[in-house]
Structures are given as C-alpha cells and as structure tokens.
C-alpha cells in the first residue's frame, strides 16, 4: 500500500515522497547491487541510475502489477549492463548463462560470501535476489525474465553447491 502512495506522489512530481521512497528502498538496493557487481563503485552507479530511471519513467510502471519486481528488474539490468561494459566480450545473456571463471578455485573457499560470489552468475544472481530482498521464485523469474522452472533449478543448484562447499559431509538439504 505504501508503494502505491509513493508511486502516486512521485508521478505527481512530489520530491519529498521520492526522498522517502529512496530512504525506504536504498538499503536493499545497495546491498543487491553490491552483491551482484561485487564492485562498490559499479554498484553505486547502478543504484543511482536505477533511482533516476524510476523517477523519470514512473509513468511506464503498470500499477496493476507489483512494484518491487519492476524496480529490481531495472536495478538488475543496470548492474548487468555495467558488468557487461566492464567485460565487453560478454553479453547480458552470457553473464546469466555461462559458467563462472572462478570455478576452479571454488573448492578452496571457506568464507560463505566468497563462496556465493564464486558461484556461476546464473546461480548467484537468483540467490542474491532471494536472500537479500526475499523475492519468491516467481518474482525472480519476472525480474530476470526467465522461466519459473529455470529459476527453481538455478536456486536449487546454487544452494546445493554452497551447502556442499560449507558442509561437505552433508549430501542433502534436509531442511
């Protein structure tokens, strides 16, 4: 409900409402962008650009749909665009689908955050969206414009990989 009010106010050009919206959304947006890009400066640019786009393009938001997936689709695309710019040979599609180059070193990692960052991007990004913002599988599928079963599979594999890494004696997630 609060989002609806913010959207209405921002559409009307209410600067104070936009600032309130920023205060409420910036924390999770910064966390998400930092985790996706693993680069503070890039994350800063992505979050900044996202909020600017939201302000300028709020009219394109369909109020029949939930707001958060729309916001995070902009944020995620912006992170991926900046990552792509840093690595001109890769494409957004490849960022989401190619195995990570960090594969070889994965088994030596003991820190959970490093292990998350060492996952393939197509497993890592859905995990970040799930655990930072608490998005459902359906919402993650909407944000990343992927098939729901693809998201389920990637989340499962990502969690399994982390669990194997951190709890090598356990073969299954019994939770």
């Amino acid at each position, binding site marked *: 409900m609060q989002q609806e009010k913010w959207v209405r106010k921002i559409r009307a050009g209410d600067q104070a409402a936009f600032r*309130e919206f920023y205060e*409420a959304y910036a924390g999770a947006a910064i*966390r998400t962008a930092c985790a996706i890009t693993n680069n*503070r400066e890039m994350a800063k640019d992505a979050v900044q650009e996202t909020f600017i786009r939201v302000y300028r393009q709020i009219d394109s938001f369909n109020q029949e749909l939930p707001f958060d997936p729309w916001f995070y689709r902009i944020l995620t695309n912006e992170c991926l665009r900046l990552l792509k710019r840093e690595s001109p040979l890769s494409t957004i599609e490849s960022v989401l689908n190619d195995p990570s180059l960090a594969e070889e070193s994965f088994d030596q990692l003991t820190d959970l955050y490093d292990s*998350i960052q060492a996952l393939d991007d197509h497993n890592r990004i859905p995990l970040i969206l799930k*655990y930072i*913002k608490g998005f459902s599988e359906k919402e993650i599928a909407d944000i990343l414009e992927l098939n729901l079963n693809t998201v389920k599979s990637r989340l499962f594999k990502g*969690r399994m990989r*982390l669990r194997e890494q951190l709890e090598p004696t356990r073969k299954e997630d019994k*939770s």
Partner: protein
Amino acid sequence: MSKFDERIKRELEEKTDADVHELKEDIWNEINKELFEGRRTKMKHKKRWVPAVFIAAAALVLAFTLQTDPGLALIKSIKDMFAPEKEIIQSIEGQDEPTEVHLNEGRNSEYIIYVDESRYKMIKGEDADVITTIEPLPEKYPEVSMEIRQYPSNKPEALVKEIEEELKIDFPDLRDVETVSEPVEGFWLHGLTEVTWDGKVIDVYVISNGKDGSFVITKKYFLEAAEGHGARFSHMLKSFEIIE
C-alpha cells in the same frame, strides 16, 4: 526458513552493511544533483514538541461499561464472534511472512484488533490503548507505537482538521489530508520530520465510530522502519473492527 537459508541471508546482509552506510548518502546527493539541482528545497525546522491537547470525553462516557452486566455480556459475545487467534500472511520488505495474530479487545470493548503478539503488546490506558514493541527499543530509535483512541462526540471531518493543525507544529511538511480505504476507511494524515534514517514518521487515521464520533489511530515509527514496523502496524490495523 532453514538455518542454512538464514545463514546465507545473514552473510549477505553483514557483508554489505558497510556498503549501505558508506554509499547511501553519496548516491542520494548524486541523484539530487541530477534530478533536482536548482530546485528550491524546503528547509525543515526542528521545533519543540508541543503535546497535542485533544478532547478525552470518551473516558467519562464509557468508563462504567465494564461494571455492568450488559458490559460483561458484550465481552462474552465478542469472544464468540471472533477467532481468538489466526494466521495472516503479511508482506514485509517484499517477503510474504506467515504470522500468528491474537484477538485483542479495545478498552471497554469498543473495538477489536488482531495483534502480532510475538513482537508487540497492547497496553490499555485510561483514555487510549497503545500497541508497542514487547521490549523497549534502544534509546537511539524514535518511538514506535500505534495508539487507538476514541472521541465519541467529535465527527471525523472536524476532528481531522483539528489534528492537522496540531501536527503541523512538529511536522511542517505534513501532507494534505487524504481519504483512504486501507488499512481503514477514513481520513489519513502523513508527516515526516526529516529525511534521515531516524526521521520521525507519523500516520494518523481518523475514522467514523459509526455514530457521532471518531476513532483516531496514530502510528509512530521512523523512516527506516517504514517497511518493517510501519507495514506491520498497517497489517494489524486492517483487522480493526468497531463493536457496536
């Protein structure tokens, strides 16, 4: 959420905490330059809190209800009418959260509301009831509470104007009164002292009591808690029902 899930969530939060604190203000400054530079920004003046003086005639009118047989019968019928507890799904910070809520009766059985008793408690007062955190928050946090007060002889249309004038003292940028249908149907006032994580937020709902008076529900929290305590209060308030 399993322990493993919680561990991943906690790890991501902890490892990005410093980023949030160090980047948040810088990013806003850049956004502000890009979108609003050159626009005149209203300065917010810190003003002394002047306690609002509202009419409290309700206490006198209804104080003896519980002393009477009809009053006791009313309580019994309320307990028969509503489930003592139920589970609701509330969306908190984007995540659906199943929460068990418990039936609470307002003072003199004037209303009912379901309270998330795992986090909040309801304190019944002489003139008003207050729902607040079970454990007091550390001093650095502004007040977090939701007060429910009845004004049996003040109609909402007049009362909301009176409250608006009072609030403008502490919330100079108080928004214009709006009519809302959620979480309750009535008038809504919204104010914010300053745009910082601990800026005080106030939401006041003024609704009809079904007769010649009003209920005034005042939510107090702080900006960073808008999607936490603010949202939880709204979910609880959706269950508010007046007992006639």
